[in-house]
């Protein structure tokens, strides 16, 4: 009897947690399909009257002054994909090297990579803003992507290191004894096995850079160069916010990351677990 109560209790707990986590997305979907009159109605209706598409049209199909959502979406795809690609391959290469080298510099380099990540976010926005301005890359996707790559590389390298360390040394060691260069050992022996690690790091980097905010809002201001983070921020900080527009924008802005979670859950969890146990 006590056992049954315990089971019901924990099931309730799990359902509660699930609800808290999932309902916001469902609410956003519900809001996105409402008319403006409905949105401002008190008391709140829990089910929308009909599936109205005016918000989607307004946000995504009608660009205006300093507003170009489709372009912003594409910008974000470009910046996140390019960063993820460069950083995942390079990160795995670094991880491989650090795991195979025997040098007192290896732990120091790893420690350095960890410490550098403390500076992510607003801390270094100001000097980088100055630098980008000086070299003419302010308000350009190129400048933004370069910054992202620099700041996500340590993250990727650490994940790559964890991954490489868990790969058996024998295979590439054997290849080296057989006369292969380190480069050959990496590309021909290790890399095929590392593909999984690269995919994991790619997905994690993509997901983390997709919603990146401080650098985007500081460095990208024009309607044409913005990412969706900046565009959405603009929409939600107006004096009189139109919540259905915000919801429609948020919904589509979330699609890529939700797809990644749904499709590649195992990768993300693996990446997270290896990252958190790096001690």
């Amino acid at each position: 009897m006590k056992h049954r109560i315990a089971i019901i209790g924990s099931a309730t707990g799990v359902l509660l947690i699930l609800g808290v986590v999932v309902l916001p997305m469902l609410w956003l979907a519900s809001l996105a399909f409402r008319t403006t009159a409905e949105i401002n109605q008190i008391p709140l209706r829990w089910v929308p009257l009909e599936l109205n598409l005016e918000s989607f049209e307004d946000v995504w199909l009608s660009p205006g002054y300093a507003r170009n959502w489709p372009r912003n979406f594409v910008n974000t795809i470009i910046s996140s994909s390019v960063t993820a690609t460069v950083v995942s391959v390079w990160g795995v290469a670094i991880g491989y090297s650090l795991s195979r080298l025997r040098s007192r510099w290896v732990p120091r380099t790893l420690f350095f990579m960890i410490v550098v990540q403390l500076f992510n976010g607003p801390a270094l926005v100001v000097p980088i803003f100055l630098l980008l301005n000086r070299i003419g890359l302010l308000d350009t996707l190129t400048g933004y992507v370069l910054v992202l790559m620099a700041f996500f590389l340590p993250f990727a390298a650490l994940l790559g290191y964890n991954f490489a360390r868990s790969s058996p040394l024998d295979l590439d060691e054997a290849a080296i004894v057989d006369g292969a260069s380190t480069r050959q050992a990496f590309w021909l022996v290790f890399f095929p096995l590392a593909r999984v690690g690269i995919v994991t790091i790619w997905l994690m980097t993509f997901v983390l850079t997709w919603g990146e905010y401080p650098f985007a809002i500081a460095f990208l201001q024009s309607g044409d160069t913005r990412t969706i983070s900046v565009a959405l921020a603009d929409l939600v900080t107006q004096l009189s916010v139109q919540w259905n527009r915000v919801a429609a924008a948020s919904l589509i802005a979330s699609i890529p990351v939700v797809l990644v979670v749904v499709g590649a859950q195992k990768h993300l969890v693996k990446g997270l677990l290896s990252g958190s146990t790096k001690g």
Partner: protein
Amino acid sequence: MKQRQRTIGDPGTPRNEGSRVSRFFPKVGFHFWSVVPAVVLLVVVVGFASAEVVRLTFTETSTLDMRTSEFVGLDTITRVSTDSSTVNALTNSLQWIFGTAIFTTLLGVGAGQLLSGSSRLVRFSRGFMLVPWVLPGVVVASFWKWAYNAQVGVVNDLLVRAGILESGHSFLGDPRTAMPTVVSVMVWRLFPIFALIVAAAIQTVDTSIFEAATVDGANSWQRFVWLTLPLIKFHIATMTLLTTIWVTNNLVIVQLMTGGGPAGATDILPVQLFRLAFQRFSLSDSAVISVINVILLMTVSALYLRVLAKAREVA
């Protein structure tokens, strides 16, 4: 100057590395080119940027006219660090950080325990735990800004329907409730993956010790506190530290939900940093806040690690 490279200490390792470059530099090869440029890049970017931040604190530099940077010694630093708005921001940051860390840890551990089972419900639910963390910060801030809205938000709707409140309360507009409200949003964003990691850690524990404890008469609460917790405390500690770091540097949630208001009630250091740089147009003032925030982060991390080391000694 650069370190001596050695591959897997095998005396039979061939010296000829194959690529043309490494024939010119026999000590250099794949490992060199993968690691060294990365380290150099990071040292240059982070090192240069940090040095610039420090240099800026000794100047008076405007965002509108970035070329002219007037050296003013300690003026900017003293003015900004003693300003009441800075002290306010520091206090708020401390509340923000500790409030979020404590509740995220509590909820994360509790939820992690619940999610460590193997029932179909639990396995189904675990997948969704990634969503709050993975969603763009702007989306999270936007949703909750609506949800806590006094007139049209769902939180007030529920509270009024349940009879707890008479009419909608402006959670974000009331200086007394604003900080707990934004903390709740950050906790919502972080506790699910905290739980996921805790659940994964719990699952690696050998179930036989639980069985033995049950035979000895321990109830589930006792098993949790005296068996589970000690075994996963390292994972909990790591996640709490990571949470603290993420939260200290987080800008998007507070900036989009309250902009630092009302009346400075939620003005945390990152928000103030941005305001000084891009609304008050003073890069030098903003730089001082950057330094303060970094010092705060280092101090909190160091204190935390010190506590952790002590705890490990005792155990």
